[in-house]
């Protein structure tokens, strides 16, 4: 499974979070929402200006900015 940065993922692409490199408040917020290694996610859409990105995980929808997605690495399914 290739490893991609979350920002580079395409719509409807899914994968498993491999690493979250954010620290401090952002890191905390990301993890609070369940974005921890091992969680399955799918990109379900992007805002009209291509940023932020919307994700589907653990049965809910989450949105974060592209520059926040940069800290998250995902093993994607081909």
């Amino acid at each position, binding site marked *: 499974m290739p490893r991609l940065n979350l920002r580079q993922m395409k719509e409807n692409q899914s994968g498993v979070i491999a690493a979250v490199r954010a620290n401090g408040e952002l890191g905390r*917020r990301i993890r609070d929402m369940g974005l*921890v290694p*091992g969680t399955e996610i799918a990109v379900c859409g992007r805002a009209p200006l291509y940023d932020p990105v919307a994700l589907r995980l653990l049965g*809910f929808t989450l949105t974060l900015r592209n520059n926040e997605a940069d800290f998250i690495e995902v093993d994607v399914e081909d």
Partner: protein
Amino acid sequence: METTIALAGNPNSGKSTLFNALTGARQHVGNYPGVTVEKKEGRYLRNGLQFKIVDLPGTYSLTAYSPEEVVARDFLVNEKPQLVIDIVDAANLERNLYLAIQFMELGIPVCIALNMIDVAEKRGVKIDAAKLCALLGAPVVPTVARSGKGKDELMDSAAALVKAGKASQPLAISYGSDVDRTLDELTPKIAAAGFLSGSYPARWVALKYLENDEQIRCLGRRADPKLAAELEAAVDRLSTHLQETADTYPEMVIADHRYGFIKSVLKQGVVTYQQDLSRLFLSDKIDKVLTQRFLGPVIMAAVVWGLYHFTFSLSETPVAWVEGFFEWLGGQADARLADGLLKSLLKSGIIDGVGGVIGFTPLIMFMFFGISLLEDSGYLARVAYMLDRVFRIFGLHGSSVMAFIVSGGIAGGCAVPGVMAARTLKSPRERLATLLTAPFMNCGAKLPVFALLVAAFFSSHEALMMVLITAVAWIGALLAAKLLRITVIKGASTPFVMELPPYRLPTFKGLLIHTWERTWQYIKKAGTVILSISILLWALMTFPRLPEATLAQFEEQRAAEMAAASEAVAQEVESAEEDKERSADARALKERLLAIDGQKAEAGLRHSIAGRMGTALESITHLAGFDWRTNIALVGGFAAKEVVVSTLGTAYSLGEVDPEESGPLSEKLAQTPGWGVLTALSLIVFTIFYAPCFVAVVCISREAGSWKWGVFSMVFNTLIAFLLAVLVFQTGSALGF
């Protein structure tokens, strides 16, 4: 002693709905001291059970990053409720239990309400509540807050747990060998020293040190600097070790293990999926349309426009009732009291002031109803999602748009409900910047000022001018926000990471409670602060009064006019019947008398404190082209922007001019030397940007949590307004206009 139960849970887990179902109308809303987080309390009474229920703010976690989290944590630690009812969204168990685990770590007895179990079942998620209960060691009760199903069973479980009264042991899960080792090393030290032991369990303190929790570290340094330093050093050692060996930090490891623990619990047969989880639910299908690249923004514009119309058009009738009532009251005072100070105070100070403030109430109710509808349905989160990219450029947040629109982003709004609309913003810095810049928008009260000036000097380009004025307000507000965010409110943008909750039909009861609570808070405020400021402003424009000699002069002039006229004409003017057709002579005399009254009012205004302020300021304000008359009018505009028009009327001896019918004043200005296109432009720019009216200032202070920000908005806005006005006037003058 009465049993206190805290109600906690993630945002969008149905917490407010459950709180309303449990407490009905027995609620009390206030604020936590020093922060703008709402504190709701209510009572639950049934079959001899009686509980005080405190609704904690919705949070995802118990860190110390957001005011909501700090408030929730402080409440649990300081007020020591006997029990926490944690409402979890059954369809979303894994993430919701993350908060539950943290309550358990803190050692507070927890009772779990497995809410929206019906939605979960419809989605094919089956949850074994008994098994979850056994694994977590906490009661788990399925509920449906909307219908009230399960709420009595929930409270019975809670009552049983309180009655059993056994102190619950803090949950001690493993956070991996490295973290565990450090925890085991620090916990005995903390326990032995009694470090922060009054409030927190020892292992929890150690855990928070490892999580880099600023609040606990501060408390620690104050309580025992030596041990605190020792703890921090131990955490640093672990941190360095983890970074070198695994490229990670203690707080990350801890979070990962919490989720690991939850996953292991859920995997033991608690949750079974009968359908494919990636299936598109109704909510996702709606999103495919509502956030679609082209359709999304179009629908959003329509919704925002709809909200605006809902707020300002539908509230017109009730606003007219309220205004009518206060006009009638003023008329009564006018008719029943003798001319003099008391009448003037009652009419201009109290009735007009309170009337103006209460007049906002219908607006605020409609605004909150509309915003609550958008918020509770889940659409507001989509607005933030779609607009974030634009507002972020200016250091704001996608949600800022609501405050801007309601404040007058579509000309004719009102900053008072606008500022309150910023409550939906959870990011503190972005919120403050929104609060401070939303009043730049062109509220309905500024419009008569623009109408007056545009009619006088730009009568051939009225529509164009109004569009330009709106554009200037938007550009100014966004740039000012950016300026604030790189100076006074600087700091990285608050993480955007946000849930897009599933679309839900809001409950009508919830909407009504929500709307009423907020409106009532506003009315209470109006009764106190706003009344006193209104009286103060009245006094500024009334005292000191003209000296007796001057008053006598005006009386003499009147008497002279009357004497000069024939007896019959004088009689005709004296008789108070307004509608009677008068002779030409009588009308001429009446006009001359009114002119004298106008001059008297002008002299009185100039003599008052406000007048003296206006005159004194002339030396600076002439840079922007304003004379003392404009200055006084602008001082008066602090009460409400449309007062600028009526005060200008008085200052130009026309008596009080009705802002809706400013034609004569407009003509007068057009003919007055010293007034021209440039002065008008400069005044328009100043009016857009200068200090918000005092009702808005009071609201800003309240929403920002400190008077400091209210004062700041007055000074900062006036300064910007003045600089821009000077820029316009001086550039224009230099160019020879």
